């Protein structure tokens, strides 16, 4: 019962990882709660602070209240700079 977490760009470099599988059992978490778990895992790394990152759930832009559960794909990344 895992949830897939992805990191991109600067975030990926700062956290030294681009993806991880997180066992969440059958819990339903908000993005905010998921972020707290990640902050524990990454020693409160500043790269994971809300103000510095955007979040997408299942490839759609999401926010701190969006609910996630096992099977979901959650991505954290900096503001986009394409084009």
């Amino acid at each position: 019962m895992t949830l897939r977490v992805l990191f991109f760009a600067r975030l990926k470099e700062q956290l030294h990882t681009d993806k991880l599988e997180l066992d969440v059992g059958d819990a339903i978490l908000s993005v905010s709660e998921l972020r707290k778990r990640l902050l524990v895992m990454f020693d409160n790394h500043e790269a994971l602070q809300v103000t510095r990152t955007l979040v997408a759930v299942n490839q759609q832009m999401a926010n701190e209240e969006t609910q996630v559960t096992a099977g979901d794909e959650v991505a954290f990344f900096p503001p986009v700079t394409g084009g």
Partner: protein
Amino acid sequence: MTTDSAPRILVTESDFSVGNEHQRLIENNPQQGAVVCFTGLVREMAGDVSLTALHLEHYPGMTERCLLDIAQTAQQRFGLDRTTIIHRVGTLALNAQIVFVGVTSAHRQAAFDGANFIMDYLKTQAPFWKKEIHTQGHSWVDAKETDNLAARRWNQSE
């Protein structure tokens, strides 16, 4: 004003031909009198550091989905017919083509507005990230507030 042409969306490491893309847009399209194309290129930033290349990272899957959504929104809003969005990823040299947006419409202002709208939304919503490669190293490009302002103007009255 038909809006049933499926957008052409391409995220690729390969270069593209503006001539070929333009041809695709106009072929057998006798109702559409106006074509507007935008091409973005890697340019030497006006600044203190000399750029040698650009590296473009993206979020596979979400990127294509997001570009398709932007293209369809523009088609509907501006009554466009055909739309093409191509965005390159990977390492790009100075003066290389990065992005192509091409649209067709019965009327020229709709075509100008449609392409302009797509670029503004692509810049602020599509999950791409640019890293500048300099002679001294590399650095991620920061998002620009002017791009956010440009995208926001489409929410106001026209």
